[in-house]
């Protein structure tokens, strides 16, 4: 069967099971948009290519399937760099297709030519310029395989216009052919049995163990296995920003988020532990604080599918390269076997009571506003949380509102939290929420955003309205680049430099309405609940709620950048008893 490259490309995407893609056409990718008209694939036309990338990420976050974006060459490809880097940092499976100038024009600085493969090389797991139509199916298969296996990540296929126009003889490579074509790609999924035994031994011998759990658990779809391990060993769990929801917040063993804005108990439990059972986490600087003072007495078991994570920051005592789910299952078996053959369990009683002491004394807290005072952002989040329909997916931007979201929400189900952790991309939430809603139309999707972030990608609400993707956006509007303001207040003597936005501009309600959404403004605590009720009741269009919140509110606890976790700053009311975090 003869097909054009464009037809082969679209057919290949269909063969890969793609149901939806996000994109925007232009000169070089034009040929691919023609067969799309006859395809089963739903295409969502965005207003800016960065939006397409983040939508693909949001979709991948909640479905576990690769998000697909297709854009043209040059400026469209460069607009895709931020989402690619974002997906790379957070190991999100994503396949991006970019148009390129014709093979005969490559290297001539032709109109809208850019070195897409060169520019995106360091922000993709792999990328490729496809020079003949015949190679397109193989390139697509390789891209999907690389994006979705091992440590997931974004891939990119750059396709010159004439390659799309030329004809090819259709073929679909077999699995074996794809594997053979990538002799240098052999992700290791099964942990080493001896290391797993070693780990089991350490776990049973530890008096102060902690399960330090990262986003890898979600990538490995290992939430159930994790729960079994935690319950069987009775070990407390901390979930990093990327792992929120991997272990239920309402579980008695869940300590919540550690790190720069983690809660005091989660931070301190890592700090005082004698064994970090590290599962799909990577000792990010936002978790460890100053590395040399991080968890000084702890031995480390480190399970990760990426061998390069082992020893990158902290040298593990027991490195296990493998898929978290498979390794945890083996670990459970190994621990059972050892216990059955009489290996005793160390007494963790004293450790448990220390942990519960910290939890009692250092809950998350903020000062509620007195009547007539400004609205507290934390209060808005509590209300959003308490009124959220079952199974709501929460998406956030980057800044103070992101930290409050992670702190105050109760995540009891995996894949209900979507955020930009590694790159910290302002502008992530609106498009990512759209992608999430496309992936899970059955769920309510709330985006919590800052007024700064919102202004970076809000135009995608037009996409949401036109495509009937009814997401809900809560802007915690403090008229500031709040997180930067917080640092300037605390570390730059309250010298505020270029962080004040504007309290009246833009008019978010009018802007929302202009984009086809319902806009609601909330100024006082009494208005919060009705506004949320109204937003939750609307299901035929997007809703934007502009919560006018107290700009002076800061995120606590906080481990200042470059300091150790023992230097954490607590809310004022808890500072006097900080000594109890021993």
């Amino acid at each position: 069967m003869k097909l054009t490259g464009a037809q082969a490309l679209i057919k290949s995407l269909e063969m890969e099971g793609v149901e939806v893609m996000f994109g925007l056409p232009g000169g070089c990718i034009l040929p691919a948009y023609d067969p799309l008209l006859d395809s089963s694939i739903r295409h969502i036309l965005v207003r800016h290519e960065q939006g397409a990338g983040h939508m693909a990420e949001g979709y991948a976050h909640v479905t576990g399937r690769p998000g697909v974006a297709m854009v043209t060459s040059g400026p469209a490809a460069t607009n895709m760099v931020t989402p690619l880097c974002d997906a790379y940092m957070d190991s999100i499976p994503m396949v991006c297709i970019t148009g390129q100038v014709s093979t005969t024009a490559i290297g001539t600085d032709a109109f809208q030519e850019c070195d897409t493969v060169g520019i995106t090389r360091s922000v993709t797991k792999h990328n490729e310029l496809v020079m003949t139509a015949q190679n397109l199916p193989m390139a697509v298969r390789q891209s999907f395989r690389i994006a979705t296996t091992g440590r997931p990540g974004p891939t990119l296929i750059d396709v010159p216009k004439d390659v799309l126009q030329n004809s090819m003889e259709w073929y679909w490579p077999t699995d074996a052919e794809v594997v053979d074509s990538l002799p240098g790609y052999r992700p290791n999924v099964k942990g080493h049995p001896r290391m797993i035994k070693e780990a089991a031994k350490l776990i049973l011998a530890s008096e102060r163990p902690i399960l330090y759990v990262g986003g890898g658990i979600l990538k490995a779809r290992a939430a159930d296995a994790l729960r079994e391990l935690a319950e069987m060993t009775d070990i407390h769990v901390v979930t990093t920003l990327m792992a929120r929801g991997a272990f239920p917040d309402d579980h008695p063993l869940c300590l919540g988020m550690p790190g720069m804005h983690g809660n005091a108990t989660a931070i301190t439990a890592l700090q005082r532990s004698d064994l970090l059972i590290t599962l799909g986490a990577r000792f990010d600087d936002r978790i460890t604080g100053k590395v040399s003072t991080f968890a000084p007495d702890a031995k480390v078991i480190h399970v990760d599918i990426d061998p390069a994570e082992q020893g990158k920051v902290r040298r593990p005592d027991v490195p296990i390269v493998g898929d978290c789910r498979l390794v945890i299952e083996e670990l459970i078996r190994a621990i059972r076997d050892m216990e059955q053959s009489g290996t005793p369990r160390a007494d963790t009683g004293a450790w448990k009571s220390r942990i519960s002491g910290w939890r009692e004394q250092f809950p998350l807290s903020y000062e509620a506003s007195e009547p007539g005072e400004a609205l507290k952002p934390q209060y808005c989040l509590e209300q959003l949380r308490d009124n959220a329909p079952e199974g709501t997916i929460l998406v956030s931007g980057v800044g103070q509102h992101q930290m409050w979201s992670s702190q105050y929400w109760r995540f009891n189900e995996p894949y209900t939290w979507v955020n930009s952790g590694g790159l910290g991309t302002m502008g992530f939430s609106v498009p990512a929420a759209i992608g999430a809603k496309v992936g899970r139309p059955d769920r309510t999707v709330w985006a919590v955003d800052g007024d700064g972030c919102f202004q970076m990608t809000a135009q995608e609400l037009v996409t949401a309205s036109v495509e009937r993707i009814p997401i809900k956006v809560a802007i915690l509007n403090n008229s500031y680049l709040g997180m930067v303001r917080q640092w300037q207040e605390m570390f730059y003597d309250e010298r505020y430099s270029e962080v004040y936005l504007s309290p009246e501009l833009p008019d978010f309600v009018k802007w929302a309405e202009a984009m086809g959404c319902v806009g609601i403004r909330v100024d006082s605590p009494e208005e919060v609940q009705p506004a949320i009720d109204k937003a939750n009741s609307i299901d035929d269009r997007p809703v934007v709620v502009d919560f006018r919140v107290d700009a002076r509110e800061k995120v606590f606890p906080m481990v200042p950048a470059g300091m150790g976790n023992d230097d954490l700053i607590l809310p004022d009311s808890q500072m006097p008893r900080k000594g109890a975090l021993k």
Partner: protein
Amino acid sequence: MNHHILSVLVQNRPGVLARVAGLFARRDYNIFSLAVAPAENEGFSRITIVVDVDSAPLEQITKQLFKLIEVVKISELDPLRSVERELLLATVRVSPEQRGQVVELATIFEGKILAVGVEAITISLDGHPDKLDDFEELLAGYGIVELQRTGRVALPKLDKESRLRAVAHKGKAG
């Protein structure tokens, strides 16, 4: 410099060298020298990289390199247990009176005279990089006009036991 030699077998595809070089730049690893050429089996190339292991632990470097999709195998060559060779070309300024001295030096080092001019002479020398260092130093006394070295290539010494320690090898799938 505390150096190690990595022999990296890669799929010979467009952009492989850029990927390897980009990785070193991006992760702040130092390359001391680099040589690339087709390997014995078709479709593959061998990149010999001399890395400065003061800039990053060798283990991290090999692991990160190994993540590149086209990298099939990485062998670490212990300098004590491998043969290393490099080629040097140098044009040296010499007056007719000095020419004899330089030719004699080249002879002692087993180099070759490639071209002789009125005021200059071009010499080639191959051998262990340390030997090339010595030679270069001696030539410097006369005034080097132009000098080009290839960067080292290396293979394991043929010993009874294999000295080639595969630090990372992606076997066939299975």
